[in-house]
Structure formats: C-alpha cells, structure tokens
C-alpha cells in the first residue's frame, strides 16, 4: 500500500460558516478519471470555482490556485452510490428512526423522500468519510408496489443535500412486488399497467403541460407531482389523485422509473412494458439474472443497478445468481452501476470492495469480471449516467462538479481509505460518531477519570 507522504489526514472541523469552494490543484498523484480508463500516474487535477478544470498527465497548474503535493496518493472523483437509504434512517431496527418504507401509508407513488432526507444522519458522515460524494436515495415499497420518488443528493456537510428531488420513481416487479400487489406477479403487472394508464389519462385530463424534469433540472412549470390538478376523474380508478399525479411524469418519460426486478423472465416482461408505454425511461434495479438476457437489456438501452457480489440462489427469482453477472452484462453492452444492499455489512462506503472483487474475478477461469477502469467507473461515472448526471458528476472532466477524493492508496484495495474529500470544491469534515468513539477508546485508562470526560 502506498503510504501518505505529504497530504495531512487531518479533517477540518465543521464550522457554522458557509464553506467556500477552494481553487486547488493536486499534483503528482495517481489519478483515476472515473470514465472507465485506467489510472494515470504522476497526474494533476485542477478545481476552480467548485468545478473541475482539468485532470490528467501533463496538465499545467494555473496561477492563483493552491497547490497540494499529491505524491503517494490517489485522486479520483467522489463515489456515486446508486441505491441507498442515506438520510432516511438512523438505526434500521429502530422503526421510529427509519423512513425507508411506509408500510401503512395510504400513498405509494406520491411518496417523496426529498423533504425527509436528514443529512445529519450518521450514515451520511460515514459514507462521506468513505469517499461517497453523491448518491441516489431510493425509497422502498411498503404498502404498494410503488416505493415513491427518490432523490439525488450530495454528501456535503450541510443541509442542502437534495440536489435533484423526485429524480425517479421506484416500482417492485418481482417477488416482493407480487406480495405487495396481492399475492401474484399477475397482479403486479395489472396494477402497474393500470396505474400508468390512469396516470396517462389523468395527465391528459388535467392538461398538465409537459416539460423537462430530468434529474438535471428543477421540475417544469405546471408539472409538480405534489400538486394534483383538481380534474374530475370518472369512476373505476385505483390511484389516489396524488399517486396519479406522481406517475404522470413517469408515463411521459420525464421521470425515470427504477424497476426492481431479478428474474430473467421478469426482466423481459419489464422491458416489454415499453411497447405499451413507449416513453418510459426505465432503469433495472437488481437484475440478478440479467446476464441471461443481457443482449436484450443492451438492445433496449436500459441501464442496470446491480449488487456485484450476489452469487447465491437467495430466492427462486435469483437462481442464476453469479458474481459474473455484472461483467457479462457489461460485455454485452449494458451500462451497469454497482450499488445496493445485500447484508447489514453493505454500506455505500463499501462500494469499492464490491468493485474490487470484480477485478479479482477476472483472474478466475470461467468467470467474467471487470477491468480496473470498468470497475471504478461502475461506482463513479456509470451510476452518475444512470441517474441522468453523465459528465457532470462521477468523472474528472472539465466542467464536472469538483467532487474529489484523495486516497491513501488504490481506492479499490481493502487497505485504502480517503484522506480528504471535496464536494463542489469544498473540503469536507471526516469526523463523525465513529471517529469520536475511536478517539475516546484509544486508551482505556480511567485511573484519573472515566472515559466520559475524554472528548
């Protein structure tokens, strides 16, 4: 492991004053751009005004920027965590602190994580300290097949986390969806198609004007899913007005539809929905058996968010699970972001471990993994593209957000961790509940006074 030579690991204390973006150049570092290319040694990254100016070998340092010697370190774009519950939960099993799903809510698609995301939740800070600078926050389905609307956030240490509210809608199409829908996949498909038809009809009746509401911009005038139009709907409706309004941008393709689906046949059925609803802007989430239908996914141009290391037949919809799933889909031309939770140990900060294992897999005969560049892209630029932010985050390209992580070694290696993290050019504090406990219990000496006085 390369050891830190010149960049101090000290975290700056979080102050109440607004943090200012720094104009900074890091030189002499090993730089991974995040775009799928292999890392470049002795390279330079320049950030001004919160944006990347240039990155790579032979980049000159403009006048007026602070120069940091990055020798011995790696510099990369911040990680983009695709499928998280950041800011929705303090403690998973403490239900009152957990807003991940809404089991007893009368609403489904209308649910919106944006107003409830809490950037002070400890997992936020842990993820930031792990090099995650952007994330999709994905609600889970609780009472309906729709989980509601997710958001794209940044992990800066401030209250302005939500950068793109209502960036996508979540729907469950597999076994879980079947349970929520009434006990069968048949009901899932009927409910979903009905909902999209109702939303389409509702949108037309309400004469909502269409407009761009991609993740990159605020929602267009006249199309706010939180404000149902008082249109008179005829009978034979299942959706509440809020839920119908929330699905209008989905059926119009103005808001992404994240489809949680695992089984190969279910994936094909999901893709086929686009014949009936051609505007759907779909992302497959899960896709454990995606490798079996990878050519069809690629042909559809639908990206995937997958847990990289899932390799057990956990359910009958995942019988074909293999760690080669991601690599095979990538080889078939599918854009695949690595993300999601499988066990209590899967947190956003462990994304590099999933990605690194994909590189290791390439050395196992008969298995299909990823190159280092592909693996790192799967936790940086590709998830950003999937979220509709291609070229703007997850990559060290001119004009991209100045989200940088300075690592003490190869970021995919078990032994590595961030030394410094920048969001939009602003250096971030890396202290949190865990680091404070670590420091308190560095010694167990209580001969003078209890540990409680050590802080």
């Amino acid at each position, binding site marked *: 492991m390369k050891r830190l030579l010149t960049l101090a*690991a000290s975290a700056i204390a979080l102050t109440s004053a607004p943090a200012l973006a720094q104009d900074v150049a890091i030189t002499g570092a090993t730089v991974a751009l995040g775009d799928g290319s292999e890392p470049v040694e002795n390279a330079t990254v320049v950030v001004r005004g919160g944006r990347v100016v240039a990155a790579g070998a032979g980049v000159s340092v403009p006048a007026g920027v602070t120069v940091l010697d990055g020798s011995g370190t790696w510099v990369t774009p911040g990680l983009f965590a695709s499928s998280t519950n950041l800011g929705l939960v303090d403690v998973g099993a403490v239900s009152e602190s957990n807003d991940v799903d809404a089991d007893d809510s009368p609403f489904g698609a209308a649910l919106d994580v944006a107003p409830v995301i809490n950037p002070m939740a400890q997992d936020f800070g842990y993820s930031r300290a792990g090099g995650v600078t952007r994330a999709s926050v994905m609600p889970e389905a609780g009472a309906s097949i729709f989980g509601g609307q997710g958001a794209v956030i940044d992990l800066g240490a401030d209250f302005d986390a939500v950068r793109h509210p209502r960036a996508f809608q979540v729907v469950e199409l597999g076994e879980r969806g079947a349970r929520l829908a009434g006990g069968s996949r048949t009901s899932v498909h009927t409910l979903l198609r009905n909902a999209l038809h109702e939303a389409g009809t509702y949108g037309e009746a309400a004469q909502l004007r269409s407009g761009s509401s991609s993740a990159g911009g605020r929602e267009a005038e006249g199309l706010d899913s939180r404000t149902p139009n008082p249109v008179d709907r005829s009978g034979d409706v299942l959706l509440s007005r809020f839920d119908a309004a929330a699905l209008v941008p989905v059926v119009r393709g103005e808001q992404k539809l994240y489809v949680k689906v695992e089984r190969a046949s279910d994936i094909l059925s999901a893709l086929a929905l686009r014949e009936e609803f051609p505007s759907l802007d779909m992302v497959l989430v899960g896709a454990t058996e995606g490798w079996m239908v990878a050519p069809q996914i690629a042909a559809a141009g639908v990206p995937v968010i997958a847990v990289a290391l899932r390799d057990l037949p*956990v359910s009958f919809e995942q019988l074909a699970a293999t760690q080669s799933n991601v690599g095979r889909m990538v080889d078939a031309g599918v854009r695949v972001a690595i993300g999601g939770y*499988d066990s209590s140990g899967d947190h956003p900060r462990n994304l590099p471990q999933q990605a690194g294992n994909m590189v290791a897999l390439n050395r196992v005969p008969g298995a299909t993994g990823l190159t280092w560049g592909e693996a790192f892209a799967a936790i940086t630029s590709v998830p950003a593209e999937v979220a509709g932010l291609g070229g703007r985050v997850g990559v060290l390209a001119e004009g991209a957000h100045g989200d940088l992580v300075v690592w003490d070694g190869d970021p995919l290696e078990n*032994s590595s961790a961030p030394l410094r993290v920048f969001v939009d050019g602003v250096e971030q504090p890396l202290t949190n509940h865990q680091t404070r406990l670590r420091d308190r219990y560095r010694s167990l000496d209580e001969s003078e006074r209890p540990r409680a006085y050590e802080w």
Partner: protein
Amino acid sequence: MGRHFRKGGPAALLLSTAASIALAGCTAASGSERPTVAAAPVASEEPYASTYERFPGVPTAIVGATVYDGAGGMIENGTVLFADGEVVGIGGADLAIPAGYTRVDGTGRYVTPGIIDIHSHLGDYPTPSVEAHSDGNEATDPTTPEVWAEHSVWPQDPGFSRALANGGITTLQILPGSANLMGGRSVTLRNVPSRTVQGMKFPGAPYSLKMACGENPKRVYGGRGRMPSTRMGNFAVNRETWIEAQEYMAEEEPGRDLAMETLAGVLSGEIMIQNHCYRADEMALVLSMADEFGYQVSAFHHAVESYKIADMLREHDVCSAVWADWYGFKMEAYDAIPENAALIHNQGACVVIHSDDENGIQRLNQEAAKAQADGRRMGIEISDADVISWITLNAARAMGIDEMTGSLEAGKMADVVLWNGDPLSIYSRPETVWIDGAVMYDMNDPQMRPISDFELGQPGEGDVK
C-alpha cells in the same frame, strides 16, 4: 418464573464422556490443554456421531509461496508439506521435500491454513431463503438448550460451496440463531459436500451452547407478552435456568433431559459458550453471570463494543468474534466502529473475524484486511501474519479445535488454502483448497467445484459463481 424444562425419567444421564475440555481462551500466548480426539466417546455412545472421513489426497509440497502459518508466523519463499491428511512440516526453500511428493508451484502465491468461520448459519438458514428453510431459531421458548443445530442443517445449502470456493472456508461452526437466550447446541462442520450432516461433522470437535444477550430475546418474547421483555428479564431467565441446571447436576440419578444435559455439559466444562452480545456493559454482566455459575465464555459474538472493554476481555480470556465494519442496523450496533478489531488486538485480547452471513463468509480475508487497515490508520500496526490468525487459529481456539486445525503445524489436519495472491488484497482468490490433504476446490479445474443437488439443472449450473 417457573421451570423451563421437563424433567426426564430415571435413565442415567447420558452426557458425553469426553475428557473435560479446557476452556482456555484464545489470546495469542495461550497454549491450552485440549482433549485429544481419542478421548471423545466412541461412536456407539455418541449420538449423531460424525461419519466424516478424509478424502484421498496425495503427498503434496507447495513450494515458493509466501506462507502464513496461522499462528502469527510468515515465511517468504516457503515450503508446505502435507501427506496422509496431515501437515508434515513447513519451512523455507531449503526444507527437504521427501520422495513421492507432488510439487505445487506457489510462486507469486500465498498459503494460509484453511479459513474458519466461527459464526455461520449455513444449512440452518440455507438458500433459497424461503420460509420452509427457516430452521435456525426455535423461537418458541426463550431457553432451548435442548435443540441441536445439526438437526436443522441442510447439507445441500449452496452456500457451503461458495464459502469453499470464494472464501477458502474449510471448517465452520453452525450456530442456532439469537432469538433465544439459550439457543441450543452448535455443530462444527468440515466444509465438504455430503449427503448427510453426519458426513460433515468435525470429528472430535466439542459442542458449544449458543447464548444471546440484548435486544433479540427480549424483543421476540416481550413482543408476545411473555418473559423476558427487558434486559433484566434476560438475566433473570438465564440465572433461573442455570440454577435449575445446578439442581439437575446435584441429583444422584438425573433422568434424561436434553436441555439439562446441555447445560450440565457447560457447567462441567465439556460444552463451550458462544455468546451473541453487542454492548460492552452487557458483556461485563455476562462475565459476572459466568462467574456466578462457574462457566467460561469462549467468545462474544457480534461484539461490536468490545473495544470499550478490551482490557476486561483480555483478563477474562474471552475472544471477540466480530465483523470488520457492520454497524447501525440495530440500536445495540450503534456504537460499532471499524477500529474495533484492532483496538481489541492492541489490548492483547483475542480477535476472531466472523461472518454471520452467507455472503460475508465468502470474504473473511477481506474483512480481516479492512479491520487491519482501520487499525493502521489510527496507529495500530498489526502484522499480516497476525491478521491471518484472526480467521484461522484464533477461531479454532474459540471453537476448541485448535489442537487439530487452524495452523500449519506438523500433525495438524492438512487444511490448506493456496491463494492466487496476497489473501489480504482485494484482488486475490483461493486457487486450491485442501481439506485433510484432499483437494476439495481447484480454481483451474471446473470439475473441482462442487454443485449442490439444488443447483443441478438450474440456470447457471456449473457456473463459476
């Protein structure tokens, strides 16, 4: 609180006749007295006895590898010899290789003892994880020392093969779940495919009793309006049950009572204690309870707060079986920190990295490496060789099998993993795994990748998983 167990008839107590098992802990310096395999009861007296016999192997010499012996030693350009199921010796490049040994080129590769997971539910909670397979918690009574995990193990769990091929797991302890204060007996398995659980049972391995502190028992039973519903209730039920066991042991002719036989086994030192316990303060209370009733806790499992009392754990010779960095999923895991293992080790107490997970068991080496690095960043340097002991010899000690496996010592079982690189690197995988000197997995031979019955004829059969 009434009695928790039925008393049996007048039949003689059928406890194991094994020599008393020294419940030495697992600090690096401890040289515990272990019962010999020969001291175990003969098969006719041992219920559900192991039928495992080692598979054929050839005398093997791995040469030119970096060797971690599992006991804290490391040899560059090392040689590992094994034959007839046993380690013959390890040494440097100058170690003489007897005639008739098959050479395996270890150049650029690493050797460790077989990896051991002290905390697994494979077989008891197998995949597919359907309700019909939920066999890990007899959650009908807060104390069920009468149940034996082996009676739930489904040998066709595909998870065993993944643990072998991806994790280099050669031995694992299957524990009942943590719904109950006393969850039942564990079983230690060789990670070999078998039609029966008896064909996997580790010959001569002692039993352990799984116990659980904290949130789970009080939630499960409190939620049903019965005791325990609080942490104090947890302790009360435990103590009353231990008292009952003492009374049982005092009977001149105690009848058959499966629950009491297990507890008497604990109090007589033949059965070890594996205690699920997250919080430091609760672990300290459990240590007092162990003192009250005269038993030894072998390891606290999921001990995410061990770093707060690592000095106490060292003094009590108790291991901490921990994850590298799980946290936050429940209240009692809120103070989990990734430096836990390093801080425990730094106090001279025993660290075991465990999985409790069908995914994590495939990567104990990576978990150990992360924990090592988290320590290094706070200034605690732990050698690679010591870190390997967290997933080999320390686990074996806490399971009472360290005289038989866990390190590459002459005479021990030839449980060996050849890695295609540094096992503490993310980029390495097991290349060959030997169990008792027999090749059970070979990365380069598709036929040497076991497939469970369940996966035959399924999509991806024979796939590199």
